[in-house]
Structures are given as structure tokens and as C-alpha cells.
């Protein structure tokens, strides 16, 4: 029987099987679900484990594929390792003493822990936006073009063009075009966060990592950022960590649920939030965590 014909919530054969066999999915099946169908994988995580100090393992044997130019959401309770994994994608965790990792992470088929890889060049390819907006105490304009200036760009025309393009992409141009030389610290919380997004994409990275980008924003500012994320995925591969389930359902194409440093389930967002294959996922997303 072709169960894929069933709608609106298409049921995969494996979900049907899971009904009669309540045992958790086999590891092979789970691995298959962690791969996005139909899109080239941009970030590939293979048996990746991570320790903060030698005795504390915070990520256990994570294997997942993150598709290109889609939004992938990481969800899970505090301390489950989602931010740690996100920070590994641009090797920000290298800055912490005593950390170690096993396994591989590939960005566009390149091993990011390869000894020959220059970390700075990796970070240029991966922009990051944090929970709390962190504009530099400079003008709006200087915030956006900062990374270009650091990399030696002095051409005013190029800088102007990048500033406008980035601010437009971050849906902030109309609000700031007449006060580009004003201090960035005078912007509202939502505007500051969009400025940080503009700064992150000014260098045209391949990937945009977002760590709870809306947690400090009001609903309108949040809606603007979410709208922006949907537009940004046309150009960038976006990975977002969020505690807001509704946000994950609204903005992401795929979602991954983490618990105690393990990847419990990864699937298309609609499938994960309508019919998760793992009981732990259902308990968490429906607010029954316990």
C-alpha cells in the first residue's frame, strides 16, 4: 500500500510500523530520518562528540545533515547541547580551555577540524547572531561594514553598497537610511538585533547561525526577525536555536530535538511537530516534559 498517498499529514511507512511496534526506531532508520531528502547537505555532522573538560561529555555521537538554503531549528531543554553544537560549526568552542571533540563536522564537504584549515577563514564563511544583540559602540554604518574594514576594504563605494545591501536584507534600511551615522546603541532592541543580522551577513557568509535571536524581543520585533529569516534562507543556510516551539514551527523547514546531549529525532518540521516518531520528542514539544 502506498501510504505516501495519504494526506494531509503524510505518513511514512516507518511511522505506520512504529504503531504496531512501539519499540524505538532502529538506529539505521533514525539516521535516515536525520538526512533531509532532496536538498544537498551543507553541514554534515558525523559521530560527533564534545567534552567541555575531559570528564564532562556534553554531546554524544551526533550524526545529522543540514540542508543547503533551508532553515534548520535546534530545539530541546536548557543544557541539552544545542548551543554547544551550534558553536562548534564555527569552532567558537575552541576558545574555551580544556575542550575536546571526536567525530567530524563538514561544511560544504570540508572537514572543519582539519589541521590545515584556517579558523578565521571558516568563521568568515559562517555568520553568527546571538541571544542578546551586541552592536559595537559605533555608528549604524560602521557596525555593518566592520568586517569589511577589518579585512582591509577601504573603497567607500564598495562599503556603501555593502552597507545598503546588508541593511536592506536585514529589513532595516528604511528605518535607518537617514541616520546611518547615528550610534547603533540608540536603536530599539529589535532594530539592534536586525543590525547584528545585517553585520553578520555583510561578508556574505554561506551559513547563518542564530542562537535564540528573538528571546529578548517583543512580538512585533520577533515577527520581523522571523519574516527576515524566511527571506534570508533564499541566500543562506540558516541554523537557529530556539526555545520557542511556535517559532520553530513557523520559521524552520527541518527541526532537530536534543536531550541530554543526544540527538533524539530530526525530521521535516511539519512531521516532527504533527507526528514525532519518538516518545521523548512528543513529550517535550507538547509540554509534558517529565
Amino acid at each position: 500500500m502506498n501510504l505516501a498517498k495519504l494526506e494531509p499529514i503524510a505518513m511514512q511507512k516507518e511511522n505506520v510500523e512504529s504503531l504496531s511496534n512501539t519499540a524505538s526506531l532502529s538506529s539505521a532508520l533514525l539516521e535516515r530520518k536525520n538526512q533531509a531528502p532532496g536538498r544537498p547537505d551543507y553541514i554534515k555532522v558525523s559521530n560527533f562528540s564534545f567534552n567541555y573538560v575531559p570528564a564532562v561529555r556534553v554531546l554524544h555521537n551526533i550524526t545529522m545533515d543540514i540542508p543547503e538554503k533551508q532553515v534548520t531549528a535546534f530545539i530541546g531543554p536548557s543544557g541539552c547541547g544545542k548551543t554547544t553544537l551550534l558553536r562548534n560549526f564555527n569552532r567558537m568552542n575552541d576558545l574555551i580551555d580544556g575542550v575536546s571533540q571526536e567525530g567530524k563536522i563538514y561544511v560544504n564537504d570540508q572537514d572543519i577540524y582539519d589541521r590545515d584549515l584556517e579558523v578565521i577563514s571558516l568563521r568568515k564563511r559562517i555568520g553568527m547572531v546571538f541571544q542578546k544583540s551586541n552592536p559595537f559602540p559605533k555608528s549604524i554604518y560602521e557596525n555593518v561594514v566592520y568586517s569589511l574594514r577589518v579585512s582591509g576594504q577601504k573603497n567607500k563605494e564598495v562599503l556603501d553598497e555593502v552597507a545598503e545591501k546588508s541593511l536592506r536584507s536585514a529589513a532595516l534600511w528604511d528605518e535607518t537610511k537617514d541616520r546611518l551615522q547615528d550610534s547603533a546603541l540608540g536603536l530599539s532592541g529589535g532594530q539592534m538585533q536586525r543590525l547584528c543580522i545585517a553585520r553578520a551577513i555583510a561578508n556574505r557568509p554561506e551559513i547563518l547561525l542564530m542562537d535564540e535571536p528573538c528571546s529578548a524581543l517583543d512580538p512585533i520585533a520577533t515577527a520581523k526577525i522571523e519574516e527576515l529569516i524566511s527571506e534570508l534562507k533564499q541566500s543562506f543556510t540558516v541554523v537557529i536555536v530556539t526555545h520557542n516551539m511556535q517559532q520553530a514551527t513557523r520559521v524552520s523547514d527541518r527541526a532537530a530535538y536534543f536531550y541530554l546531549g543526544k540527538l533524539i529525532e530530526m525530521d521535516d518540521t511539519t512531521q516532527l511537530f504533527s507526528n514525532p516518531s519518538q516518545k521523548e520528542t512528543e513529550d517535550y514539544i507538547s509540554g509534558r516534559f517529565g
Partner: protein
Amino acid sequence: MNQSKVEHTLASFEEALRESRNSVLRMASVAQQNLEHAITGLLNRNAELCNEAIADDDEVNSFEKSIDGEGLKILMRFSPVATDLRHVLAAMKIANNLERISDEAGSIARRARKIGKQPEVAETRMIEPLYEMASALLRDGIRAFAESDVDLGLALHEQDRKLDAAYRKTVKELTKAMERDTGNLKVYLHLIFVARCLERVGDHAVNIGEESVFVGSATDIRHIGPEALSEMASDYGD
């Protein structure tokens, strides 16, 4: 499908879902009782029971509105997902089907009152087996919802096919009786409509079963055809 036995962290959410489920079960019980009163009123020529079935339809109508209101409130306040979301959607649709079942009971009761004023015909007893089948379907549909029993929900189509066949046979017999006993044409015509009402009750019970399968398995089995349905039933049975 991974329905959880664990309670929500938010007690008010748990309570709202429990209340929605209980309202559906209470509504089902009233609809079932209305149907029983209407049929007993028909078979025993008891106008009082018929009047009760008609009057109690108001209670079922109120239930439908209150279940829809509760569902809307749950969607607004708690943004449910997965099984919880399917439960809320199903509860609202099941309430609609129960309201229609109670309407059918009202129609039967109205016709039963008219039949009761006419001379008694033996063919009235032909309605009893149809009622037994329709009532069993309704009971199983509600049980499938109450116990999240996907297998039972899937089995209702087959039961309904038997009811449909019995309905067709009954109509044929009643038509023959009309040709034979032309003096009681009105009574036979009323009985044909009563049979039709019970056949519709079966259809609504099947709808309730389909919603129960949706809650329990996240699969929409509406309009998928008997072949796909039986394959699915055997998949689940394995």
C-alpha cells in the same frame, strides 16, 4: 505515533484537554440516548419517549457549541501540537457528527409519532436490526475515540458496509410491503425514511472512527478507498 501517558507540565492545559474529551463522551452519551428513545418510541408506539428524544436534541446542540468553544480556547491558549492538536481538531469534528446523529434521532422520533397514530404494521420490527447495527457502530466509534483504538476505528468501515447492505434489503422489503398493503403507504414511507436515518447514523459513526484513527496515528483515512483501507488495517493488525 507516540501518544504520551505523561501529564502536561501546565496543569491547566491537561485539564482543558481532559474536559474536552469528557465533553465529547458526555455528548455521545446523550446522542446515543436520544437515538435509543426515538427507536424505542417507534417500536413501542410511545409518543412520550419520542417527545423526549426531540426535546433532548437541544442539549446535544449546546454540547456542540461548547466543545467548539473549548477547542478554540485550547488552540488560542496552549497552541497544541502533535497528538494534542489532533485531539482538539478531532473533538470538534466528532461533536459535529454527534450533533447530526442526534438530528437523525429527532427525525426518527417525529416520524415515530406519526407512525404511532396510524394502524400498527408488522414491518416496523424490521427497523430493530438496523438500529442494533447503527447503535453498535456509534458505540464502537466513540470507544475508538475514548481509548485511542486505531484498530477499532479502522474496523468501522466494514461494519458500515454490513449496515448499508441491511438498509438496502430493508428498503426493498418495505417497498414490496407498500405494493402489497396500499392502505398503509404512509407508514411504510415513514419506515423507509427511518431506515435511511439509521443508515446515516452509521455514516456519522464511521466519520467518528476516522477521526479516532487520525488522533491515534496521524493518518487521514478519509476517502482513501476500501483497498487502501484494508491494507492499512492489516498493517496495523500485524
